[in-house]
C-alpha cells in the first residue's frame, strides 16, 4: 500500500495525530516500566525460603515474671520436649529467628582475624540440635552439627566461651565468600579471636528481613548455639493438614507446663510469608490496575479520534469509493494510518521508557529495565491500536459511494 497519500493527509491534521502519538508514547513508557515492576514484585514474593513452609508453625512467648528460680536453659529445653511430644508434631526446635519473622539477627563476618572491613553482613540463625530437622533445610554438602559442638548463648554473650567452632552456611553465602572454591573446611571469623569452620552447606535459608537484593536475602549462617526463651521462639514441624490442631494443642500444653509464660503469637509460617509480602501484593495489584486503565483510556482515545476523522472524511471516502476504491482499500487506509501514528508513538515511547527506567534505578534502587520489555510493550500497543481502529475503519469502509454526490 502506498503510504504517501496517508502521510500527506496526516500533515493536514498534525496536531491531532501528534496528540495520539504522544499518548501512545506516554502509555508505552509507563506500561513497559510498570510491567517490569510487577514482575520484580512477584519475583520477590516468590523467593524460596529453604524451609518446609507448609509444615511449620511458630510460637512466640513472653515471660510474666518470676520463673520460680528454674534455670531458664533447662526450663526452655523441657518446654521444647513437651511440645515435641504432642501427637502429630514431627520435630520441635528453639530458634532466635524465623524466615519472614519480626526480629532479625545479623552479624558482619570476616575471612581473617585482622581484616578491617567485614566481608559480608550475614543473617545468623542460633540453632539447637533439632533445627535442621524441624526447618527441613536441605543439607547439600558436608555434615550436621555433632552434640559436642553446641554452646549456650549466655556463655557466648558473656564471653565465657570461644566463638562456635563450626557453622553451616547457605550455598549463596558460600559462593559470595569463596567463589567457586569448596567452602567446606574454610574458616570464617565472627570476631577478632578464633575462627569458625564451615562444616556444611544448605541449599537455601532466607534471612528474616531483606530488601530487593535476593543474593543478600539468602546470605545466612546457622550457628550451634542453644537459646533460652528470653531470646528464642518455638518452631514445630507437622503435617500441613495438622497445623491448626497442633497450634491449639501447643497453646494448651504450654499453659500446663509453663503457667508463667503467655503466648504472644502462634501461627503458621505460611501466614508469616503472606503477611510479609502483603504490601508487595497490593502494589502489584495496583500496578496491574494502572496498566489496564492506561490501555482502556488509550484505546478509547483512539476510537474517539478515529471516529471523528471518519465522520469528517465521509465525503472524501465516498469520492474514493465512487472512483473505484474497494472497501478493503478504505479499511486498509485507516489501519495503515493508525499503524503509522502508533509506530511514531512507540519509537518515542521506547526512548522515554528507557529514560524513566534510568531515573527509577537512581531513585529507587531498582535494576535496569531488561531490553526485551520494549518489544513486548510495542507489540501490545500495536495490537491495541489496530483493535481500537477496527470499528471506526469498518464504519468508514461501509460508506456508500453515493455519498460523493450529496452535500453534507
Amino acid at each position, binding site marked *: 500500500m502506498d503510504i504517501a497519500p496517508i502521510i500527506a493527509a496526516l500533515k493536514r491534521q498534525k496536531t491531532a495525530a501528534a496528540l495520539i502519538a504522544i499518548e501512545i508514547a506516554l502509555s508505552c513508557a509507563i506500561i513497559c516500566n510498570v510491567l517490569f515492576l510487577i514482575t520484580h514484585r512477584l519475583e520477590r514474593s516468590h523467593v524460596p525460603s529453604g524451609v518446609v513452609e507448609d509444615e511449620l508453625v511458630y510460637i512466640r512467648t513472653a515471660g510474666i515474671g518470676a520463673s520460680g528460680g528454674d534455670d531458664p536453659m533447662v526450663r526452655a529445653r523441657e518446654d521444647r520436649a513437651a511440645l515435641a511430644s504432642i501427637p502429630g508434631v514431627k520435630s520441635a526446635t528453639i530458634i532466635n529467628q524465623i524466615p519472614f519473622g519480626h526480629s532479625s539477627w545479623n552479624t558482619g563476618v570476616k575471612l581473617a582475624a585482622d581484616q578491617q572491613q567485614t566481608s559480608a553482613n550475614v543473617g545468623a540463625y542460633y540453632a539447637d540440635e533439632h533445627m535442621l530437622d524441624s526447618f527441613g533445610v536441605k543439607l547439600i554438602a558436608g555434615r550436621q552439627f555433632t552434640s559436642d559442638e553446641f554452646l549456650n548463648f549466655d556463655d557466648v554473650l558473656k564471653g565465657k566461651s570461644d566463638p562456635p567452632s563450626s557453622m553451616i552456611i547457605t550455598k549463596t553465602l558460600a559462593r559470595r565468600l569463596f567463589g567457586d572454591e569448596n567452602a567446606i573446611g574454610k574458616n570464617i571469623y565472627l570476631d577478632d579471636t578464633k575462627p569458625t569452620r564451615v562444616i556444611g552447606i544448605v541449599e537455601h535459608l532466607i534471612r528474616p528481613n531483606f530488601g530487593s537484593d535476593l543474593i543478600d536475602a539468602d546470605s545466612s549462617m546457622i550457628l550451634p548455639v542453644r537459646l533460652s526463651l528470653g531470646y528464642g521462639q518455638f518452631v514445630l514441624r507437622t503435617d500441613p493438614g495438622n497445623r491448626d490442631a497442633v497450634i491449639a494443642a501447643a497453646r494448651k500444653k504450654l499453659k500446663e507446663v509453663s503457667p508463667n509464660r*503467655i503466648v504472644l503469637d502462634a501461627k503458621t509460617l505460611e501466614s508469616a510469608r503472606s*503477611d510479609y509480602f502483603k504490601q508487595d501484593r*497490593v502494589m502489584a495489584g495496583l500496578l496491574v490496575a494502572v496498566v489496564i486503565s492506561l490501555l482502556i483510556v488509550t484505546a478509547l482515545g483512539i476510537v474517539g479520534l478515529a471516529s471523528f476523522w471518519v465522520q469528517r472524511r465521509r465525503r472524501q471516502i465516498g469520492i474514493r469509493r465512487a472512483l473505484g476504491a474497494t472497501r478493503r482499500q478504505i479499511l486498509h487506509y485507516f489501519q495503515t494510518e493508525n499503524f503509522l501514528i502508533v509506530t511514531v508513538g512507540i519509537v518515542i515511547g521506547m526512548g522515554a521508557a528507557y529514560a524513566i527506567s534510568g531515573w*527509577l534505578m537512581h*531513585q*529507587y534502587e531498582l535494576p535496569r529495565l531488561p531490553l526485551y520489555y520494549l518489544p513486548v510493550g510495542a507489540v501490545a500497543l500495536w495490537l491495541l491500536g489496530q483493535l481500537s481502529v477496527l470499528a471506526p475503519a469498518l464504519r468508514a469502509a461501509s460508506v456508500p459511494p453515493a455519498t460523493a454526490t450529496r452535500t453534507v
Partner: protein
Amino acid sequence: MLRYYAWLAARSLKRNPALTALMVLAIGLGIGASITTLTVLHILSGDPIPEKSARLFYPQIDPRTINDYHPGEAPAEQVTYPDGMNLLQAKRADRQALMTGGGAVVLPDDAAIDPFSVDARYTTADFFAMFDAPFQYGSGWKAADDDAHARDVVITRSLNKKVFGGGNSVGKTLRLQSTDFRVVGVLDDWRPTPHFYDLNSARYSDYEEVFLPLSTAMELEFGRNGSMDCWDNTPDGDQLHSPNCSWLQFWVELDTPEKAKAYQAFLNNYSDEQRSQGRFPRPNNVRLPTVMQWLDDQKVVPTDVRLQVWLSFGFLAVCLVNTIGLMLAKFLRRNGEIAVRRAIGAPRREIFAQFLVEAGAVAGAVLGLLLALFGLWGVRQQAADYAELAHIDPTMLLMTLLLALATALLSGLLPAWRACQVTPALQLKSD
C-alpha cells in the same frame, strides 16, 4: 455571556453523551488517582510535631571502632547507655530524654481479662514536656523518680479504658510482669505521625501504651524492642550497659539557634574527651538533625508511596493528552458554527471563551474528588501500617480543586485556541 456559553456547552456535551462521559471519566480517573496518592504522601511526610519540630534535635555521635570505617558516612544512629547517661546528666539542653521501646505483660486485677502484652516506652522524665504529650489525668514523673527507680507508670487513654474502665486512675496500681506500678498519669489521645522519636518500631502504627522510667525498666530487666548495634565484644555479656552497643534514642530540646550551635560544640568536646579516655577511635563525627531532617535522613516515607505518586501523575498525563485530542477533534467539527458566529461579529476572544467554558465543564472535578475519596477508602483497606491514616484534609481538598481547574484549562487551551483560529469566509464558502 458566561451563562449563555455554559448553556451552549451543556447542549454540545449532551449531543455526544458517550464522548462526554469518556472525557469526564478519563479526567476524573486521573485526578482521583493523583489526589489519592498525593494525600497519602502528604500525610506520611507530614510534620509529627509542628509547633516545635524545629526546636527538637536528635544528637548523633560516633563511638564505633575503626573497623568498617568509611569517611563521610553517617554517625551511629543510636547511643550507648554510658554515652546516653553522660549526655543526659550533662543537662546542656533545655530539655533532654533518653529512651527505648520495649514490651511488657499486663496482669489486670480483673480476673475476667487475660494477661496481655503491650508495647512500652522506657524513658526519662522530660519526655512528656519535651514532646508536648497531653495528659488527661495526672502528669509525668519527676527527674528524682528516675534516680529513685520509681515504680511509676504513665498509661494511654485506651489502656486506661481497657484495664480500669476509664476515669481518673491516677494512684491506682498496674501490675506489669510481676511488679506493681503506681499510675501517675493518663495520656489523652496522642499519636504523633510518624512515630518520629523511635523509628525502629512500626512507623505509623502500634504505638506504645505504657511509659515507665528507663532506670526502673533496666533494673527489673524488662524486655526491650528495637535494634541494637554492637561493634566489639562486651566484657561480661551485659550489652545494655556496654560502651560498645548502641540501642537508645536520645532527644534534646534547644530553644534558640545559638543554643543548637553551642550544643553541637558540646558534642564535639564530648567526643574529644572520650577519645582522650581511649574511646571514640574514629575522627569526630557529630550531627544534630532536627525532627524533619532526621525523618528525611531515615527515608521515613515508603518508596512505594512516592512511586505511586509518579505513577498516578503519569496516568493523569495520558488522560489529559487523550482529552485534548478528543476535544480538539470535537471543536473542529463545529467549524461551521464557529464561522457563523465569527461572521456575525464575535471576536476571536469570545470564541476562545466559549470553548474554554465547554472544556471547563469537562473538568470532572467532582468526579475526581469522589474517586479520590473512594481511592482513599481503598487505601484504608490495605495492609500498610499507615493505612488507617488515609483521610482527605482541607489542604488536599483545595489541591483537588486546583488540580481539576489546571487540568481543565490545560485540556481546553489548545482546542479552544485552534477553534478561534477558524477563518469564517473559508468555512462558510466550503459548506
